[in-house]
């Protein structure tokens, strides 16, 4: 009930008022603001910080429309001719559609297959009654997060290389033929997705586990008294209890859908898998390296930001229906 009322309030304060606000309401709002002055005071340092460290440098985006020159600076540099020159270079690359689809596919696979394992693991941790087992596995599963992609690539080679990898040695010893896990186009994306899941499974579970730990324990106790099975409790108490966090993380992930993981792909890919593995960011890296073109990187970044922001707005709107939206 309380929630409902607040929701109505929230609508009234959203920045795009549908109809003119009557005078009495203005007074009421300013009274409300005054009542909450302490909250604004708390927020103030953060707003200032964002202004200085995020919004002041924001003028840098104009570099996308300029030919950058060190001594002239960002403002002084001349405008690109035509103004969309750098965008044109990106969009007109013969590889543009391939880059875009590779980026989206890799990113979507990671999203689809990456979210649920962490949630399940968090629930498993929470349900585990043997505390030493829980503690050990928790710590172990979180360690791979600290390995850099270069090291993980080294490990992958040791296990999966077509000629020297452990797995392929087993396969060939049992009479099969070696599988080009890292070497061919068929497996490349699956390897990207699975190594990422492996790396961040336990790390990703931390946040869900924290969310589950914050659920009111009396809910579980009441359910137990009612004779609910553990599966039912997971479905009716645990999952709804962390819905907020799940939805929040999903929205943010969707916003960064055009980031398919530069560092990882850069370490794993090679000319033979370019057609399935070359993504926007690796293309920018290679092109930028050749030409020292600052504007290109900024331009592609702007492209990604605009799409990402639109997706966040859309996803948030959608999320409002289920609760757990950001605003």
């Amino acid at each position, binding site marked *: 009930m309380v929630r409902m009322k607040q929701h109505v309030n929230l609508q009234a304060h959203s920045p795009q008022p549908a109809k003119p606000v009557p005078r009495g309401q203005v007074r009421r709002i300013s009274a409300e603001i005054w009542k909450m002055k302490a909250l604004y005071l708390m927020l103030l340092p953060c707003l200032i910080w964002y202004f200085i460290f995020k919004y002041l440098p924001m003028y840098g985006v104009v570099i996308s429309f300029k030919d950058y020159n*060190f001594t002239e600076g960002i403002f002084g540099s001349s405008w690109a001719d035509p103004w969309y020159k750098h965008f044109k270079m990106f969009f007109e690359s*013969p590889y543009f559609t391939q880059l875009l689809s590779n980026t989206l596919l890799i990113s979507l696979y990671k999203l689809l297959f990456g979210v649920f394992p962490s949630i399940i693991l968090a629930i498993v941790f929470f349900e585990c009654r043997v505390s030493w087992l829980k503690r050990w596995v928790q710590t172990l599963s979180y360690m791979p997060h600290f390995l850099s992609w270069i090291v993980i690539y080294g490990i992958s080679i040791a296990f999966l290389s077509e000629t020297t990898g452990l797995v392929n040695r087993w396969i060939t010893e049992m009479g099969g033929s070696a599988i080009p896990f890292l070497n061919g186009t068929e497996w490349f994306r699956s390897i990207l997705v699975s190594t990422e899941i492996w790396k961040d499974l336990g790390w990703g579970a931390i946040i869900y586990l924290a969310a589950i730990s914050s659920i009111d324990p009396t809910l579980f106790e009441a359910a137990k008294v009612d004779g609910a099975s553990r599966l039912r409790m997971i479905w009716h108490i645990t999952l709804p209890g962390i819905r907020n966090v799940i939805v929040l993380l999903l929205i943010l992930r969707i916003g960064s859908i055009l980031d398919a993981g530069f560092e990882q792909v850069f370490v794993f890919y090679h*000319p033979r898998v370019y057609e399935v593995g070359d993504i926007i960011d690796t293309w920018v890296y290679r092109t930028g390296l050749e030409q*020292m073109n600052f504007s290109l990187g900024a331009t592609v970044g702007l492209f990604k930001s605009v799409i990402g922001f639109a997706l966040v707005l859309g996803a948030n709107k959608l999320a409002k229906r289920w609760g757990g939206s950001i605003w």
Partner: protein
Amino acid sequence: MTRNRFWSLSLAFVLAASLLSACGGKEEGAKGSTSEGGNASGPVKLEVSQISWGTNLPADDFVKKELDAKLGIDLKQTLVGDQADYESKINVLAASNNLPDLFMVTGKPHLQKLAESGSLLDFTPYLDKMPDYTKFAGSDVIKKGLVSDKQYALPKAGQAVSHTYWVRKDWLDNLKLQPPTTVDELLIVAKAFTEQDPDQNGKNDTFGMTGTNFQTFDPIFGAYGITNIYEGAKLFLEDGKVTNTLYHPKMKEALATVKKFVDAGVVDPEVVSNKGTMAKDKAFQGKVGIINLEWAQIVKDDQVAVWKGANPKAEWIQLNPPKGPDGTQNSNSINIGAPGGLWAIPKRLEKEPEKLNKILELINYLATPEGGRLVQFGLQDVHYTLNGEQIAITDKGKQEAGFTWLYQFAGREETEYLKTKFAGQAEYIEFEANLPRIQTLDGYVQSPPGYNAADANRFVEEEMIKFVYGKSSLDQYDQFLSTLESTFNYKNYMDSALEQLNKLGYGK
């Protein structure tokens, strides 16, 4: 409870903050004194920046001491480990007008960008003040630092000439084979290495040859008198004319030969995906018998310890590049236009003649025999002994002088230097230095606008892999060229490249 926690937290915070400001404060003090420097009295402060690849200056930096005393300077190096990090750092320093007094530029495109921005000082009027450097480097080297006819950088002299096929001598002996001298023999040996159990372990677990991508096949292209297909290796002079290896009539033959190796199953199936030291690791593990490598990666003492330690019977020898059908032989090409290192100075030094003169003096001094010996070998009679012209490194020199390359601003006479510093490996160094090689000119060429080298390189590389692995037929080679010209603007690039090279006097 809460109160206690609050106090301990605040205490920790205050402590930490005071530590922080202590560290910060110290640095500010140091910085203050830097800006005071450069006064008439005292040594002239010079700040130098370059990539260190992880090499650190020792606490007792005898090269610095010697140079400081000799030239009346206070030389301070700021080292960044990695190239990408270094470039980012130089870029922000350039943007904030904080460039160091002397710094390394990582390549032609970077130099061009900085020069076009007007961040750099043109060395042209000052070259006269560096007679030793100009003589030492020579005009061919110095012109590598030109951007639109202006000397925006001083290139380091000396270019490594290395790489050849190395082969497992003990495997040859096991199979009673002679070192191959032609491409055909190379294939026979590679086949035997793959199929006839050269390590006699009773398992079919070896390959003929490995390498990193097309670099594996460098000498095979060389046997046809052409260069490899990767970046920086395509343009060379033939009969006085500039030729592009992709357009060369022998290219199809060379690709067909490489394909023969691949089809015979003698090439490591992972050649294309090998990265870093993976190919070398396979060679050291005894999986492969032939590899195109440079001496430093295989016969330096620490490397020998690895493969000898793993298999005491192993023995690697160098091969002459295999001869092609008409007897041509060439090892890896060398890109003579690519600078080994470019030193630039910021525009602002124009107004600081004292610093500028000291820098010119410094670089010039390092090009003299005396200065060169200091930064190559260390202190005379401590780190090396001089007997007439003959230099011998002392044990102390071997231990302590590993970092001195960080001071070789003027460069060095590569082969002589290496032979002295690595006396034990002199014969290998000499062997690789004297092999026939095609000189490529790509380093002199700047990409014209509208041509994206990264896209074109990717296309070339991918198509070549398809030809070699039989995914496309060599009959389609001309079609490949026409796509390259139209879709990837390669025609435009070639026209511009020919014009630029003609201007420099190549292929008139």
